[in-house]
């Protein structure tokens, strides 16, 4: 059953009406469309343009039915023409006859089907959609077996590339307008539109050739990216999935497979913290495509293009199939599992135990599953005897740590997607909805106009603008100060019903940010949603893969919680030291005060070059990785682990919702928890978590003790503005959704849809940088980034924005600083 267009939310308030469809009485909430009401009695009316998430178009005319309504005297009056059941609401006393009981309706549907097919090519045998095609299926069920059309079919040059990722075969298109309505109504990126008219009607980009325009360029919010290049959408791939024919195909999947040769496995997307439901279609142990699965509570019908297209990274040539160990000559050589585990166990034992041992740091990375995060935490505490474990691989702060352990860990499901949609006001801090939120952006956009949205940021990003957000200007790093002095109207809005404050991962670089946000919850009643970027961060917080916090959220300083957990784990006690975070661990490693590192899925691209130096300096490094990387090249032992498609696990999404998934297929690759369990055995400890069920059973038994929770942070935001010398600017930066991330490797078609990297400054700042329109940004290290400069209206002066990790602009590695730091800016002549 699908949701009704008219009945939103509080179903109790919508009156129920009763009518008759095909002689069967049906009661539905008022406002229910006939086509949905018919589904409830098991009558499926054929349809093409209809989509439950889009507004009715009544364009394809396939769903015609006969309708009669009672007049004011109660006498039944038949409507003279058949009606489209996708656009007409069922009303009390209405009598509907579908194709099941009405010859008129059946004849009308057959007529429309015949007309739809006259210009549709008979290329089903080579069409990607063949076998899962609504047109094919419904032509079989509601059409005539033979065509009477003997004339010339419409043809077009094929295919038309709408983006590098999406190809359009116009002759297959039945002009249902689902794709154009999606792009306009859902993400608000009108990158395609109907062109020409009549039989020549076609979907296309604004194409001067098709439209016969000359010297005319498109303008508008979503038609260009920062560089002036046409920007399509981060959500364009959804149009392929909702296309009822094979007109829209993806460059990656086109002509690769037949749907009936694929095995479909439900899963959860690994690219962001939303935990979107996806379907993995695979064949002979290789993923060939991914689709959205409708999940009304989370991603509804949609996923990001990254979730849809970025999966090739899991099966590239640099996949690690077997362990590696460093030989005497210093080269990494392939090794057997027993040999590698033995080497790793010996090296870690040496660093962890004994009088001169300097200890081991464990850095699992932010993409771990809940089960893996738990295993890293347990491995650190039970085997290595340390609380030095931190899944955050990014800028962090003590304040953030206090916030996470006091206000996130063990709190269960808090603000949900549905709450975002219903909130009267949303304040976003250190969070870019489109780039860092994925489907969060779509949920917020659903409420545009009905919701006050504010963005604490140096400028209004295109994504925030599409939400109709109001900018609360803030210099990066000073978001805490901005929260402390919010305009009165923003504070008043936050007192509205269900108001939400969204904190992104970048608040970690804003002193006082969390403390001020927590204060606001007390003064306004708004609730906080912490929406990190990476899929594993919330799970890591819950599973104790953070220093100083035990699984379930208790502080490691709490003796009772420690002993309860130790009892469960069959140990006498657990380490009581507070534990170090990622910054401290790396600093210790860099200064030669760390004996060994256990690294999970971490990339050198995400950290300043000092991280690489620290890893190099560490005497013994064990890396658990999927693919060869800069980190594995530095490791002494490399243990291969499975990518998400090949393992079972759970992502805890930002809501706190458990998103369990099973392995789509088995390649023999094992998940991190299994490797850590084997490694522990090699070190003489039985972790007791060799299977995903064993981990889940332990997780379920973790005691939650709210009393043992750490206290909330209370750090004052700085009031004085830091002095800035001439030629300096404060660095602003975030990851674009499609960028140079390693999880997007191997998918050039997706890469082609990325926004082009530019540097943004305010018009006033731009004026000080010369007229060449190119700016060079230099940071703490020797490197610099040179990019085209875009003057951005309304941007805070003295700030320069760069994409964090787009091709050629790696801020962490090339500048060695985090957002909020002072950088040197220089306009250069072209």
């Amino acid at each position: 059953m699908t949701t009704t267009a008219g009945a939103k939310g509080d179903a109790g308030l919508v009156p129920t009406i009763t009518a008759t469809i095909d002689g069967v009485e049906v009661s539905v909430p008022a406002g229910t469309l006939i086509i949905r009401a018919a589904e409830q009695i098991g009558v499926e009316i054929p349809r093409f343009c209809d989509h439950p998430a889009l507004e009715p178009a009544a364009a394809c005319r396939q769903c015609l039915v006969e309708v009669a309504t009672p007049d004011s005297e109660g006498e039944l009056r038949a409507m003279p023409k058949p009606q489209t059941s996708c656009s007409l609401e069922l009303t009390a006393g209405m009598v509907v006859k579908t194709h099941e009981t009405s010859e008129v309706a059946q004849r009308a549907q057959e007529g429309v089907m015949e007309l739809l097919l006259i210009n549709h090519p008979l290329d089903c045998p080579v069409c990607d959609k063949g076998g899962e095609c609504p047109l094919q299926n419904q032509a079989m069920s509601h059409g005539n077996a033979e065509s009477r059309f003997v004339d010339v079919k419409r043809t077009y040059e094929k295919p038309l590339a709408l983006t590098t990722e999406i190809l359009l075969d116009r002759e297959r298109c039945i002009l249902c307008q689902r794709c154009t309505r999606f792009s306009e109504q859902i993400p608000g990126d009108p990158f395609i539109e109907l062109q020409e008219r009549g039989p020549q009607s076609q979907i296309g980009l604004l194409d001067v050739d098709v439209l016969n325009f000359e010297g005319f360029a498109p303008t508008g919010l979503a038609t260009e990216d920062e560089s002036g290049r046409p920007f399509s959408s981060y959500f364009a791939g959804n149009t392929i999935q909702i296309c009822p024919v094979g007109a829209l195909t993806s460059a990656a999947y086109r002509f690769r497979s037949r749907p009936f040769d694929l095995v479909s496995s439900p899963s959860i997307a690994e690219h962001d913290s939303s935990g979107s439901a996806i379907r993995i279609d695979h064949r002979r142990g290789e993923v060939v495509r991914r689709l959205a699965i409708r999940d009304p509570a989370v991603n509804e019908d949609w996923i990001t293009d990254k979730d849809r297209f970025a999966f090739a990274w899991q099966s590239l040539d640099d996949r690690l199939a077997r362990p590696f160990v460093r030989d005497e000559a210093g080269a990494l050589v392939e090794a057997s599992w027993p040999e590698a585990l033995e080497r790793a166990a010996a090296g870690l034992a040496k660093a962890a135990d004994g009088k001169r041992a300097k200890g081991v740091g464990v850095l699992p990375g932010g993409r771990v599953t809940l089960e893996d995060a738990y295993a890293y935490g347990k491995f650190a505490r039970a085997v290595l005897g340390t609380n030095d474990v931190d899944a955050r691989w990014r800028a962090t702060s003590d304040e953030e740590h206090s916030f996470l352990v006091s206000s996130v860990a063990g709190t269960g499901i808090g603000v949900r997607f549905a709450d975002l949609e219903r909130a009267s006001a949303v304040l976003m801090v250190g969070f870019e909805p489109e780039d860092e939120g994925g489907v969060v952006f779509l949920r917020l956009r659903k409420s545009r106009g009905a919701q006050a949205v504010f963005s604490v940021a140096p400028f209004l990003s295109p994504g925030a603008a599409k939400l109709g957000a109001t900018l609360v200007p803030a210099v990066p790093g000073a978001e805490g100060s901005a929260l402390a002095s919010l305009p009165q109207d923003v504070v008043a809005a936050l007192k509205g019903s269900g108001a939400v404050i969204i904190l992104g991962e970048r608040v970690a670089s804003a002193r006082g940010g969390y403390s001020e946000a927590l204060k606001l919850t007390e003064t306004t009643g708004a609730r906080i949603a912490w929406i990190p970027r990476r899929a594993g961060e919330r799970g890591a917080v819950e599973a104790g893969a953070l220093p100083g916090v035990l699984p379930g959220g208790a502080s490691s300083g709490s003796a009772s919680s420690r002993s309860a957990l130790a009892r469960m784990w069959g140990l006498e006690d657990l380490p009581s030291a507070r534990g170090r975070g990622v910054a401290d661990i790396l600093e210790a490693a860099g200064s030669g005060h760390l004996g060994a590192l256990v690294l999970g899925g971490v990339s050198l691209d995400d950290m300043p070059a000092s991280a690489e130096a620290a890893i190099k300096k560490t005497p013994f490094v064990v890396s658990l990785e999927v693919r060869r990387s800069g980190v594995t090249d530095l490791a002494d032992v490399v243990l291969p682990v499975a990518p998400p498609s090949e393992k079972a696990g759970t992502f805890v999404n930002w809501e706190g919702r458990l998103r369990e998934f099973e392995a789509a297929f088995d390649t023999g690759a094992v998940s991190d928890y299994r490797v850590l369990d084997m490694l522990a055995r090699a070190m003489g400890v039985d972790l007791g978590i060799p299977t995903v069920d064993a981990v889940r059973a332990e997780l379920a038994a973790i005691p939650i003790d709210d009393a043992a929770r750490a206290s909330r942070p209370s750090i004052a935001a700085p009031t004085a503005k830091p002095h800035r010398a001439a030629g300096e600017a404060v660095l602003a930066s975030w990851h674009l959704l499609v960028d140079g991330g390693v999880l997007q490797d191997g998918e050039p078609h997706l890469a082609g849809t990325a926004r082009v990297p530019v540097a943004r400054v305010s018009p006033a700042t731009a004026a000080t940088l010369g007229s060449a329109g190119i700016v060079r940004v230099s940071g703490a290290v020797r490197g610099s980034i040179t990019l085209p400069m875009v003057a951005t209206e309304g941007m805070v002066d003295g700030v320069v924005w760069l994409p964090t990790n787009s091709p050629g602009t790696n801020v962490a590695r090339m500048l060695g600083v985090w957002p909020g730091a002072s950088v040197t800016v220089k306009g250069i002549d072209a």
Partner: protein
Amino acid sequence: MSKLTPILSRHWAEPNSWSLTTYEADGGYAGLKKAVKSTPADIIQAVRDSGLRGRGGAGFPTGMKWGFLPAPDGGHRYLVVNADESEPGTCKDIPLMMASPHMLIEGAIITAYAIDAERAFIYLRGETVHVYRRLLGAVEEAKKAGYLGTNILGTGYDLEIIVHAGAGAYICGEESALLDSLEGRRGQPRLKPPYPAVEGLYSRPTVINNVETIASVPGIISEGAAWFAAMGTERSKGHVLYSLSGHVERPGQYEGPLGMTLRELLDMSGGVRKGHTLKFWTPGGSSTPLFTEKQLDVPLDYEAVEAAGSMLGTRALQIFDETTCVVRAVARWTEFYKHESCGKCTPCREGTFWLSQIYERLESGEGTEADIEQLLDTSRSILGRSFCALGDAATMTISSSIALFRDEYMAHVTGHGCPMNPRATALFAVPAKKKGARA
């Protein structure tokens, strides 16, 4: 015997008929001066009492349409004049606006005053640049004379009229597609409800009327509803323009009461082309089923024409004599509907595509008897199934011409092509009794 009643057309022959001076000299803007002294409700009642019905084809009672507007809520309300006259054969609004633009302007001001709109739009067929200039000039003149702009005639009422030139699409004559086009979107019909009276232009209450409808309003106000209602038949009141074209001696606009017959009009216009006889005619343009000489005495009002099996439409009386191949004529109209289909809905978009290919084959001699059935069956798949009335319109002459002239269709099949001489239909090809001239 009915008489012609030049009312809308009464100035057309005067010098500078389009100027304000000429218009005012003959009592122009008297209706407006009278209107602003009465209340909007009185004006709406007068139009209701007059029995004026929409002249754009559908014949919906105008006063009732105005009455559908919700009560003012302080927001914008609009009047939109549909001047996108594009149907083959229909040629009444363009001459009216060309010769007497002030009559439309005056009607628009009275209507806007009655519905409390402070902005009115005239959506004009863009190709008629001449008319566009005349309308722009008339708006300027009216503004200077104080009939438009702020504080009109000292009433405190403000109105601005915007003349908008469309880009040449038949669909934009459909009122909701016109609104989309006027808003700057692709012209495609909108889903109804909401109806324009509730959510029209920019989602605000909007009245949309045809040019001739609005131009009839000043007369109703100045001469009175009873004067107007005295003309015409029982349920089809008032004066209208009859547009005679085709094989008629004196084609043009003939203004008279509703309910005249084609026989009367042919008498006034010199009859069918000399030496020829009537074969078929359209009562209301290319979107209405064909009539033959059997319907010469059908009163041309909404009810009688419908009872006779067609529609009054825009009273575009296209006369075809016996030299005309009906297959050829309908094929041209079908081409038109194919070209002008907006492409939104399947039946109209694909159906006209198919139909025009069948006609092509019939004309070139490749048609079969099954094709004639296919024309009828495809027409049935369009009629009543399309999104808007334009799809229905495309089928009207097809099904009626096959019903009336099936033998002629069959002759195209059996004779492998058109049996008639296409040149004989042209005026210039009429033999001037000279030897050797081709018939």
